[in-house]
């Protein structure tokens, strides 16, 4: 039985009269990729933000590595072992690719009072950044300004930064957004490699990709879960087919 890393229990989030997320239950296990799919506005990004701690819960609870982190701030959850990548590119465009990862890794060894030591000489963050860049294959672009990368490379860097803090759980919000076929395949292979040491929550629109790589799929419509199961179960699920009208099969 794989280790349960992250659990969201009866998660709800209310904006005024609108229930953006409605009583959602979700579990992320080590070694498994759990995909969340759904129509636009289904609440997928909100779900990720609730789990990460960027948005406070209206009700429900979040357990990370067997600890109740429902009221924990986002940085605190990150320290425990949660990593998040964003839907929009949030890389630091004016900094080099290396510095992007190094800064991310610095979160694990902050030591802000040591003002006489430069960030660039910080061995902890440097070695971690080098490791991550090697792993994602971006090490060849180390010195390039991040803003000058191609879109696909930026998305890769986004995930790399997420990995730089050595998290146990990865929350990936549409990492494949705007990628071509070849780049998508590369990213999917990469996610497969990551699977062994992490638990991954993947929010995606690209159905083919999801069915190729996911172990479990949760389908959300209007903030609520309408189905959850293995890819083949989901494919045969009537409710899902109705909700989607043309899901790739």
């Amino acid at each position, binding site marked *: 039985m794989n280790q349960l890393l992250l659990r969201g229990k009866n998660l709800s989030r209310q904006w005024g009269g609108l229930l953006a997320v409605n009583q959602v239950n979700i579990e992320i296990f080590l070694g498994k990729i759990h995909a969340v799919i759904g129509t636009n506005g289904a609440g997928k990004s909100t779900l990720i933000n609730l789990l990460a701690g960027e948005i406070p819960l209206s009700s429900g609870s979040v357990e990370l590595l067997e600890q109740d982190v429902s009221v924990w701030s986002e*940085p605190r959850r*990150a320290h425990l072992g949660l990593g998040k990548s964003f839907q929009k590119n949030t890389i630091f465009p004016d900094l080099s690719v290396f510095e992007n990862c190094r800064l991310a890794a*610095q*979160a694990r060894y902050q030591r802000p*009072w040591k003002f006489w030591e430069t960030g660039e000489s910080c061995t902890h963050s440097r070695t971690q950044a080098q490791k991550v860049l090697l792993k994602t294959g971006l090490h060849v672009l180390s010195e390039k300004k991040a803003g000058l990368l191609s879109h696909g490379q930026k998305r890769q860097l986004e995930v790399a930064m997420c990995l730089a*803090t050595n998290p146990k759980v990865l929350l990936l919000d549409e990492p494949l957004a705007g990628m071509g076929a070849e780049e998508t395949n590369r990213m999917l292979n990469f996610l497969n490699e990551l699977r062994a040491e992490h638990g991954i929550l993947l929010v995606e629109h690209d159905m083919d990709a999801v069915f190729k790589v996911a172990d479990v799929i949760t389908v959300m419509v209007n903030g609520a879960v309408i189905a959850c199961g293995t890819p083949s179960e989901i494919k045969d699920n009537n409710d899902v087919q109705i909700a989607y009208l043309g899901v790739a099969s």
Partner: protein
Amino acid sequence: MKKSQLFFLLILASILVFLPQISSEYVTDWLTKTMIFAIFALSLELLVGQTGLVCFGQSAFFGIGAYTAVLFSAKVDHTYLGYLLPLAIFAAALYALIVGALSLRTKGVYFIMVTLAFAQMAYYVIHDTPLGGGTDGIYLYSKPIIFGDLVLEGSICIYFFTAISLFLVLGFLGLLSSSRFGRALIGIKINELRMRAMGFETYWYKLAAFVISGAIAGIAGFLFAMKDGFVNPEILSWHVSGTVLMMIILGGLGHLRGAVIGAFTYALLEEIFRSEIIFGSFSKNWHLGLGLTLILSVALLPKGLFGMRDQLLRGLSLDLGNFKKPPKTKL
């Protein structure tokens, strides 16, 4: 340190060491004043240029630094630099802690307005209450003793003391900006949400930057009080806050050198616009020239004079595309 930074420091040091030997008391005085501005501008640069926090209340910390020094000097027969300066810094930093703790709970425009309001609050406390000695201001009772017989008085002494302070502040801020703390601040400026997701408790970083910034402004305030031997409530006015903001924009955000250049540029512009030789009777209305310069420089030189170097290197092409209007869609 980059070569260009070293070069800048050497040039600055040479100018500052040589000029008083060959010029009048007026110029020395002007340079001292400008160096004080530079320290003041550097304090704001840390906040605005590095951390992305637009503070419109820097005058409060400047003024509190100045007033603390003067008020305390009035209580005792003679003061020592060794505790007077730290006292001034502490008072300014304390107020910065309070203001920062409250203001940093707000974002964006609120932050700007709240910092302005807190500076006004300090202004009114000094202006209206007996604490500040009234609207006419108060005189510095005695200049502090540095050690033994050496007292911080006389324009040359104060000049060099200020110059040393400027270099120390530059050195400290230089170290700070390349340290882990400084790198984190840059990250916070670019994308705070991202930094939080990575595990940085951004509120504390911002608060620390705010307090350090306030402390440095306090140093500038202290020097100001020493130089003129006189303080009045107007040094806490929001116009002072606006002025120092103007300096760092003129010079160029995001670079410590920009703050120094901006301070010198502003001081020069003030001299020019106030000069009766050039502007005759309009010299009384010198704010007009300043206002126009500010508007034009923000519009045409958004990266300030320091950024002009980059712009010139890329070939001069004024970015008129910067002027955008909201899209037109008819009903």
